[in-house]
């Protein structure tokens, strides 16, 4: 796919103000689907998690999942929304083979949550308030697999397979109001916003929030307003953005693409665009106009959702700390510098460090392990298999260092073994014999041997050229296979040299 002509980003920002808007779909991790008792599981054999309702069989009817309603209320509350006393479902009618009934049941003019706000912090420390217009419940569609074409898309495919396992999975769609004033930070804001939503739903425990699995999906609306104009530009809606990094890249790309078109005297077409991770570009999808006619009307098979006010208050009381508040608290508690803390936040390591500190490590030690050696091991790990190191293991490792059993170097070796699944740090120290040799007798024997092997060095030390001791220390460390405390070796070398 040919990349469009792109304007330099800074130049684009000189000429235009980016205006953003986001629609984030969150798949809820309820036990069963939005309107049927079919299991809500990812990765099952195709068309096994289905009921007559998921398939839209004649005579079947939807029934609202109360767990999904509770999750949606919690999410609405976490976004500082008002929860509607009564909300209702509508039918969004359009024909598509992944939509079993050829209509989607979705909340339309009476959503469950409205008028919210979420605080988003950018990597540069800037804090942004994003207004939430609404959060509404709906059902997911099935999944189409296009077979026979070269691109995996419907164009050129010989046939398509439909898997209705996902049909009816509960979704909450969170819609922001128009976001102005992000300016240069627009791409970072996009990423930070989606990351914040992810953190909120994870903290609530209502979604697996894995973007690569489609648990969390972001449609990014971008338009440009010429500097000095108060007229909004035509927007595009970029879909298929399934990682935080892609959200940032896609918004940056659209700003640059639209700026170039406008600068060249062209017009922006109101359309959906698809993000392509491989090429780092968006391509035109289907034209979209405000007059898209889905023939919405109230879903006659369902009653309005009227939650008990007591339930809402219970859910409000059970809300976890907001991510922004939590970050402020942790930064103060841990005493990190701005830079250190941003590094932790951007690496998504708040939970790991919290738990490692809870397991007994100091915040700084926890930070160093997670942002340093563990991050390096994770990067080196093949594919997305990841590495399996728990905060408790990290705390134990640090404990071994603190008590002198391990040097930093040895500790890194132990960590590698932990990552390889060989057991707890203490067990690995025992089975591999990796502990520091603290027996002076063994060290002295090695030192005497090294000194006698290098009589010239011994003379130099005796002459007061203490820095010459390095060569002996190196030899001793080598003989001890690294399992010695270098500082102690140095002390002993100087003692022995003086004595000989």
């Amino acid at each position: 796919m040919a990349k469009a002509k792109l304007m330099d980003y800074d130049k684009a920002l000189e000429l235009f103000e980016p205006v953003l808007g986001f629609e984030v779909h969150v798949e809820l991790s309820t036990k069963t689907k939005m309107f049927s008792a079919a299991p809500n599981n990812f990765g099952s054999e195709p068309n096994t998690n289905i009921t007559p309702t998921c398939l839209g069989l004649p005579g079947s009817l939807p029934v609202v999942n109360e767990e999904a309603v509770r999750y949606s209320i919690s999410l609405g509350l976490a976004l500082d929304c008002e929860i509607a006393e009564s909300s209702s479902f509508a039918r969004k009618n359009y024909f598509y083979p992944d939509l079993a009934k050829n209509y989607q049941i979705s909340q339309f003019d009476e959503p469950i949550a409205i008028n919210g706000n979420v605080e988003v912090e950018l990597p540069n420390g800037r804090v942004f308030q994003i207004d939430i217009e609404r959060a509404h419940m709906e059902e997911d569609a099935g999944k189409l697999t296009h077979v026979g074409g070269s691109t995996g898309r419907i164009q050129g495919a010989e046939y398509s397979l439909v898997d209705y396992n996902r049909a009816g999975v509960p979704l909450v769609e969170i819609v922001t109001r128009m976001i102005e004033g992000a300016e240069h930070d627009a791409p970072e804001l996009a990423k930070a916003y989606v990351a914040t939503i992810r953190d909120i739903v994870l903290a609530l425990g209502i979604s697996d929030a894995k973007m690569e699995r489609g648990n969390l999906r972001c449609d990014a609306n971008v338009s440009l307003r010429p500097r000095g104009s108060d007229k909004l530009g035509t927007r595009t809606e970029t879909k298929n953005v399934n990682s935080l990094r892609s959200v940032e890249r896609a918004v940056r790309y659209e700003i640059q693409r639209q700026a170039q078109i406008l600068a060249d005297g062209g017009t922006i077409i109101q359309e959906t665009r698809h993000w392509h991770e491989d090429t780092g570009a968006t391509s035109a999808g289907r034209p979209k106009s405000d007059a898209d006619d889905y023939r919405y009307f109230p879903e006659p098979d369902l009653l309005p959702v009227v939650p008990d006010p007591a339930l809402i208050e219970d859910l409000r009381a059970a809300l976890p700390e907001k991510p922004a508040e939590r970050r402020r608290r942790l930064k103060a508690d841990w005493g990190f510098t701005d830079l250190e803390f941003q590094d932790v936040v951007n690496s998504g390591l708040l939970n790991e460090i919290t738990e490692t500190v809870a397991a007994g490590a100091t915040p700084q030690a926890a930070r160093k392990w997670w942002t340093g050696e563990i991050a390096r091991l994770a990067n080196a790990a093949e594919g997305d298999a990841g590495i399996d190191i728990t905060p408790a293991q990290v705390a134990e490792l640090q404990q071994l260092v603190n008590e002198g059993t391990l040097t930093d170097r040895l500790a890194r070796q132990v960590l590698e073994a932990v990552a390889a699944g060989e057991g707890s740090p203490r067990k690995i120290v025992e089975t591999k014999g990796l502990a520091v040799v603290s027996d002076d007798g063994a060290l002295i024997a090695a030192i005497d041997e090294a000194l006698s092997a290098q009589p010239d060095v011994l003379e130099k030390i005796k002459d007061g050229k203490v820095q010459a001791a390095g060569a002996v220390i190196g030899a001793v460390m080598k003989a001890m296979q690294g399992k010695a405390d270098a500082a102690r070796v140095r002390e002993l070398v100087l003692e022995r040299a003086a004595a000989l």
Partner: protein
Amino acid sequence: MSDLIHKTAAQLAEMLAAGTTTSVEITQAHLDRIAAVDGDLNAFLHVNAAVSLEAAKASDARRAAGAPLSPLDGVPIAIKDVLVTTDMPSTSGSKILEGWMSPYDATVVTKVREAGLVPLGKTNMDEFAMGSSTEHSAYGPTRNPWDLDRIPGGSGGGSAAAVAAFEAPLALGSDTGGSIRQPAHITGTVGVKPTYGGVSRYGAIALASSFDQIGPVTRTVMDSALLHDVIKGHDVHDSTSLKDEWPSFAEAAKNANVKGLKIGVIEQLDGEGFQPGVLARFHESLELLKANGAEIVNVSLPSLEHAVAAYYLILPAEASSNLAKFDSVRFGLRVQPEGGGTVEQVMSATREAGFGAEVKRRIILGTYALSAGYYDAYYGSAQKVRTLVQRDFADAFSKVDVLASPTAPTTAWKLGEQLDDPVAMWRGDIATIPANMAGIPGISVPAGLADEDGLPVGIQFLAPAREDARLYNVGAALETLLEQKWGHTLLSQAPELKGGAL
């Protein structure tokens, strides 16, 4: 022909309890009757004698073991094809579902099976219940047992004709705008549309979800009450089904007494536009009720003037969406355009071939009514009329216990007579539609024969939502009074069906 077919369900239940007959005998008698006369009537789309007799045998075994499932255990029943069944095809009268086997039973079907009733087969209907004559069935019209050249009403003409022709003592129907009550009126039988939500809709192939209601089709009020008692109640699969505890409707029918009952006659449904013989029988019935202690007053429901127009916007709107699922992807007919085609082309070819003219007419109408720019004028206005109708009924029921009207303006018309004028046929639903608009229950009870054509006429009673029991009270009372007056049942006056007339 065995006399067993002329017994009511209540009588059959008594005989089974007394051990003077068996379910196999009863079932066989009805299967024989179907074999003899259904070639002329076409009331049934599907009959499987072997399956029915198996169910009858199982019922007899339960009786022998002293463990019947309900008083009706062993009594046969016919099932309108709008209800899905696992052991018989379910087509809703449409080609698009020809031969389709449902993997699940409708809740009402499960309930009648759990009560031990013996399904005889699936009955004919207008395609997707769209029609008032059963002429819109994709499988040919059902004929009226009173006159084979005439329509049996619709959409449930199959269930009504089956019961009127003694092919089944009981049947299930569905009533969206009169599809149970109007055929009852046309065939001299009893039909009840319960309160909306009184009976589960799960497994009823939806026409218009906010109007559809499943109900009994029988020859006597008591039989309707007995069947209603079997099928009523909340269903976890249907969010719109009510959680109410319902009284025994059989008790209400048994203890019928209209002394002091206040009956309102709906002015808008009495007079102009109604056939003289229909009105004559209507007023005769009211006089009889009055003579037995009921108080008769006139009430006005001014919004009924717009009810038919509003109904024929809301119904097609919901139907256009409900019928979208018939696209060939997951079930039913699939028509491949020549040389293959895209999924849109296959869907389009399938729907073109699979739906009949009346269905297409209503899909187009409904799609239009819901379209952006027209929604407020059509669907929106229609919903406002619906609210007005509901208010009119609430007002009326603050003054009277039940309302009364003729069930329909005319007696049975000739096959084909109204096919060229769909709007005329829609207007015929004027008396039955309001109950569906308001979600209230209604019953049609035979009131006699029209003088001018000798065809059956029904009287309709309506009650406030949740007060279905009042219908069994007034219906059973009137039925008794009329039969005392006539000295016979109305259906005993129907011509003898010989079979092979056509």
